């Protein structure tokens, strides 16, 4: 990623803060939105983007973040439904070319993947990581015994 892109990160929890800080450090123009402005403390010192405190379920907040100019939107609030709605708004109303959606609940994730969202289920990913690590530990045990 050489070109500097305009990226909106929606939700500044632990995941959102890491993504926003990292993308900003890579030289991209990042705007991060969260309803709770105390979450902006999670951002790293290297973060040089903008932060907007506001309810992302409100159209005017997304407009104030200039979502229509964004090349990428990443929805990572703690609420699945909010991520789903914001992502669909980003795609259809603001015409953002790349939209990524975090969905915790695997059942919902499956449905919205079929409906055309690019979804990432952090729950599924964690489960896989746990199982892989467990398998490695068991393999070591088997070798040693």
């Amino acid at each position, binding site marked *: 990623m050489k070109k500097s892109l305009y990226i909106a990160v929606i939700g500044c929890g632990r995941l959102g803060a890491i993504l926003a800080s990292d993308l900003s450090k890579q030289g991209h123009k990042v705007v991060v939105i969260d309803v709770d402005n105390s979450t902006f403390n999670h951002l790293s010192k290297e973060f040089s983007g903008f932060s907007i405190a506001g309810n992302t379920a409100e*159209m005017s907040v997304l407009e104030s973040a200039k979502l229509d100019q964004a090349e990428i939107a990443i929805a990572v609030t703690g609420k699945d*439904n909010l991520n789903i709605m914001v992502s669909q708004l980003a795609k259809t109303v603001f015409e953002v070319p790349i939209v990524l959606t975090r969905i915790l609940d695997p059942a919902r994730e499956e449905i919205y993947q079929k409906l055309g969202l690019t979804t990432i289920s952090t729950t599924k990913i964690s489960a896989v990581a746990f199982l892989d690590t467990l398998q490695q530990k068991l393999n070591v045990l088997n070798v040693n015994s």
Partner: protein
Amino acid sequence: MRIILIGDDQLAYFLSKKFVAEKHRVTIINAHPAEAIKFSHQIKATVIVGDGTHPTILKEAEVEKTDLVLALTSHDEDNLVACQIAQHYYGVPRTIALVNDPAHQQFFEQMGINVAFSATQILANLIEKRADFEDITNFFAVDRGQITVTEIILHEDSPALQKTLQNLELPTGALIGCIIREERAFVPHGWSNLQIGDRLILISQPEHYEQLLEILTGKAE
């Protein structure tokens, strides 16, 4: 018709009651156990406690056999997701969603929701149309007069002045849907107080209307 209602406030309550009276089969999905129990005592409907936006809960409500899903919560994202899952995943033919942010209305319909309605927009339109009003204006009667919507203005002789809504002891079956004060309209809370010159939009069953008027104006119609 089989109807699923998702919501936990007065709107969901009155609508379910109306649908039950019209012999529809109603299932209410309510996220709050205490509210759900209250609903189940007051309305002849199936009441399910849970997240009405989740596929498992919708399935429990027999969404596949349902003709209409109404999502009426105060969160737009929940209303959107409930209707989309019902429609696209379970094949419900008709969905209606409340939009709290009027700016979402068109987007919801673009996303396939059959009807997206904004209470704010409806009230704003009504108020604009009624630039000329007298003390009491009958806006309309809903469903052959089962509910009436009226507007009144509070004068200096009103016994309700400076009182909060929760102290007024309004009859059940009647509510103040909106207060218009100095050209600003808002939906009141229990602690909102009433002032001279306030215009109130009243939503009431006819049998409670007279009592409501008396509390607010000091005189019966």
